[in-house]
């Protein structure tokens, strides 16, 4: 049979007469009508809701659970935050804590967090498409809806949208933010917080204006080729320069360098030369290095290859291969001469001591570092090419370089990187097409996105990269549009400057590098904002003269700066007058003369009721507490008013202190104060000090 004949037969079958036509059309319409209820019946969410009802029906608290359960499409609508989240349609059990043992999604209760879903919605933290009602559309990115659900490891980024301060529960975000400032990301990329403030770097890239005084062209070449070969902890990234490029940049940097006004003392240089090659003198110099607590800030690799020491200053394992002797002795004498804003304090070393330390450091060399570096004198062409490269790579974004202006907005601004549309990104081959994978891959290996890109290679491990992705994702459109009432702004940066002669001294000694005063400074050593209310003047004078440690378990210690009596007086007077707490009246309680009965009561309270010996030492023979400061001399160190205030509420006087508040009665606090004030230290030690 031919095709037209068959079609004719089919037409006859369905539409042969009016009755047939009517019948078939009715059937067709009926089927079409059935589509709507069927679609509803087979919808993802409907299936999950039936599954949930089945799940709870088997449990003993089924009645309660069923009462909480609301069928149909659910929605959290928060117009001021732009949230339309229908996630609770399928995730029915978010608030059912009795379902803790359920591990299958979408029925798990939400883990405990500080926010309620009805106040924040879901997509603010988890991203994804809140308004979608199918599994695929809600969780994955589609052509129309680009935002996929965030993997768990990047969830902390969402906290950072509103919380601009560090949170205790978000270690990854905190680390990522710290890295943005520490590794110099923000020198090239501008990142603005929602309140408009710009994130600044906490690293301090050295000025290269007088680089030729400090080091050789060979060292610059080796450093440019691989900074981590010189120091594993170097924060400078690897720019993957060719040999010729490194040669030309080093040529430009040395030729553009101008002489610094260094104080060269021949006696120190001679001493350094002696110490450098003499094992006995090395040992003597090493103890000076130890006594000066250089290791509180600088690390040195030991024989086992482990870094020992702090990370405030640069690692010194191979410093002898880098620094020129003239520069090093001048730097040890007074680092502010070469680099005024440096964090290194000005120790008042004698010329002899300067020589010893210089010699000690110059002996720390690595023969391999510069073994294969042979550079001819540079040609003008090479220097010109070097200058072009320095401009191209934006070296002046971080470093001060003679003849080069700091480029503005050298790299793309990252204020909205966390909401950059995926279709605007150029992915490297093999990188999954999501924003977080893009950022992670870019941080991990920037040049994989194109050999001509300028972004350098960092040496981050996987955890550090995840932390950085967290920090970057938090800078998104939502963070910028969040109502101010819902956000916690960043702590204002303190620009506190101490005044007068004492202020100059404080800056000369770089106290802020370790101590915080009025919100400015580091956290390595105690906050000194209210030091004047806290300590007795005589003790402070003695402490400056010889800073013996208060805490037995502490590794990093306060160095001795060899201050003159006049300097100590200036500093002490300033601290005692200016750094006073409004909550403590220093003279309200006497320093001595407490009734023996009260002292005895205080002693009993100290040892039995409050168990202070768990953390502190008063009797060096029997007490062993390692956590708080030693209290053997506390009566000649602290003021009675401070101790009393501290007993009442330690965290009021020093926020974040480990010592818990005890809700002590006035009577107990007074007795403990009396007991502690009676601890003046042994007579012998007192006499020795005088």
């Amino acid at each position: 049979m031919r095709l037209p004949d068959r079609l004719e037969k089919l037409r006859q079958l369905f539409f042969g007469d009016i009755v047939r036509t009517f019948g078939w059309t009715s059937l067709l319409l009926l089927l079409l009508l059935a589509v709507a209820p069927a679609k509803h019946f087979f919808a993802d969410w409907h299936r999950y809701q039936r599954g949930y009802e089945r799940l709870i029906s088997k449990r003993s608290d089924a009645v309660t659970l069923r009462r909480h359960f609301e069928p149909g499409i659910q929605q959290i609508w928060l117009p001021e935050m732009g949230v339309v989240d229908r996630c609770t349609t399928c995730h029915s059990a978010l608030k059912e804590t009795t379902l803790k043992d359920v591990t299958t999604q979408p029925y798990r209760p939400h883990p405990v967090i500080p926010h309620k879903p009805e106040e924040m919605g879901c997509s603010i933290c988890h991203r994804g498409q809140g308004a979608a009602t199918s599994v695929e559309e809600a969780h994955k990115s589609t052509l129309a809806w680009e935002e996929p659900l965030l993997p768990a490891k990047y969830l902390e980024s969402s906290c950072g949208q509103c919380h601009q301060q560090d949170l205790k529960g978000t270690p990854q975000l905190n680390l990522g933010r710290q890295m943005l400032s520490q590794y110099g990301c923000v020198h090239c990329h501008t990142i603005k917080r929602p309140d408009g403030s710009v994130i600044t770097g906490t690293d301090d890239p050295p000025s290269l204006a007088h680089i030729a005084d400090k080091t050789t062209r060979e060292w610059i070449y080796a450093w440019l080729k691989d900074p981590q070969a010189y120091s594993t902890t170097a924060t400078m990234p690897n720019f993957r320069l060719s040999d010729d490029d490194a040669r030309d940049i080093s040529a430009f940097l040395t030729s553009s360098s101008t002489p610094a006004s260094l104080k060269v003392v021949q006696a120190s240089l001679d001493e350094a030369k002696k110490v450098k090659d003499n094992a006995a003198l090395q040992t003597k110099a090493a103890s000076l290095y130890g006594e000066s607590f250089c290791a509180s800030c600088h690390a040195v690799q030991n024989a086992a290859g482990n870094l020992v020491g702090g990370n405030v200053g640069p690692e010194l394992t191979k410093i002898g291969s880098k620094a020129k002797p003239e520069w090093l002795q001048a730097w040890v004498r007074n680092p502010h001469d070469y680099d005024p804003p440096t964090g290194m304090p000005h120790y008042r070393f004698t010329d002899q001591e300067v020589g010893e330390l210089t010699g000690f450091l110059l002996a720390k060399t690595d023969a391999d570092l510069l073994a294969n570096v042979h550079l001819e004198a540079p040609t003008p062409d090479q220097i010109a090419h070097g200058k072009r490269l320095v401009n191209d790579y934006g070296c002046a974004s971080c470093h001060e370089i003679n003849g080069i202006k700091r480029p503005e907005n050298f790299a793309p601004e990252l204020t909205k990187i966390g909401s950059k549309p995926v279709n605007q990104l150029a992915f490297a081959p093999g990188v999954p097409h999501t924003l977080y994978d893009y950022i992670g891959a870019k941080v991990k290996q920037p040049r994989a996105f194109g050999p001509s890109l300028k972004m350098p290679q960092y040496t981050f491990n996987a955890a550090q990269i995840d932390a950085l992705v967290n920090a970057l994702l938090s800078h998104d459109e939502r963070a910028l549009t969040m109502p101010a009432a819902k956000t916690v702004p960043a702590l204002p940066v303190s620009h506190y400057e101490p005044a007068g002669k004492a202020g100059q001294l404080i800056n000369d000694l770089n106290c802020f590098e370790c101590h915080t005063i009025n919100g400015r400074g580091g956290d390595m050593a105690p906050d000194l904002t209210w030091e004047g209310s806290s300590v007795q003047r005589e003790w402070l004078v003695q402490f400056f003269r010889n800073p013996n440690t208060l805490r037995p378990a502490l590794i990093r210690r306060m160095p001795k700066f060899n201050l003159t009596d006049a300097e100590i007086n200036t500093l002490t007077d300033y601290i005692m007058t200016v750094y006073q707490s409004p909550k403590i009246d220093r003279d309200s309680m006497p320093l001595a003369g407490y009734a023996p009965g009260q002292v005895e009561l205080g002693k009993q309270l100290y040892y039995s009721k409050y168990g202070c010996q768990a953390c502190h030492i008063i009797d060096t023979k029997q007490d062993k507490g390692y956590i708080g400061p030693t209290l053997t001399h506390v009566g000649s160190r602290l003021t009675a008013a401070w101790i009393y205030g501290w007993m009442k509420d330690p965290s009021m006087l020093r926020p974040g202190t480990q010592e818990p508040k005890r809700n002590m009665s006035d009577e107990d606090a007074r007795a403990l104060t009396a007991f502690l004030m009676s601890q003046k230290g042994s007579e012998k030690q007192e006499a020795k000090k005088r």
Partner: protein
Amino acid sequence: MRRTACMVIVLVTVLVTGLLVGCSRPSATSAALPKPTAYGAAIVESSGGKQTAEVGTLLTQPVVVQVNDQQGNAVTGALVVIRGPNGTYLDPAAGLTDSSGQFTTNVSLGTITGRYQLVASTTTKTGKSVELKIEEIGLGYQEMLGSALNDQYCARCHNQESTPQRVSNYDNLEVKPHPFTEGDTLNKLSDADLTAIISHGGPALNKSPLMAPYGYTLSKSEIQALIAYIRMVSDPPYGAPGIVYAQK
């Protein structure tokens, strides 16, 4: 006419085979494990067990297992396969042991708070599979907060291990504190008991007065977070008492 029919048949065959090949490809690649060059008799843990990490994140230390032969000597080239619960990401999940008989893998935990049991297995000469169970702990937001509080307030006394940054105070104490992993003791204490000890100090439950009260220092939710953390790291694991549902 016949030619059209033939072409249709050919077209359909091509399409069907294409489809079949296309569908079968993924299963073919997932089975591609490296071929072992040697076989061991036992598999033991070298390092990386019992770590805590935030859910979804990479464990700080990789998991290292070692394959030994019957004499206890390390075996090079034995095949190790590691499996984990849903959501666990292993990089790599399978491979051959190196020259010291070890296989190293980086583990990212899944999204659920709790204990993650990894199963490392290797096959013996006779084709039998020997297994090793390794446990890791995934901390949720609350437990992470508790972990941070532990570092700040508790660990100096409750953790025996000293680190270069902090010297443990454990040895100095007359009455020894319980490490938080000590499940045999701590699991017997109810949440209310732990809250009382943390808030009011040791004497609240007739324990050592060297344990100071933190009720005026920590908030209620912080104490809850601390307890959540203590429960999570205890060994043996803590099974919450309370309503027990009839399991069908």
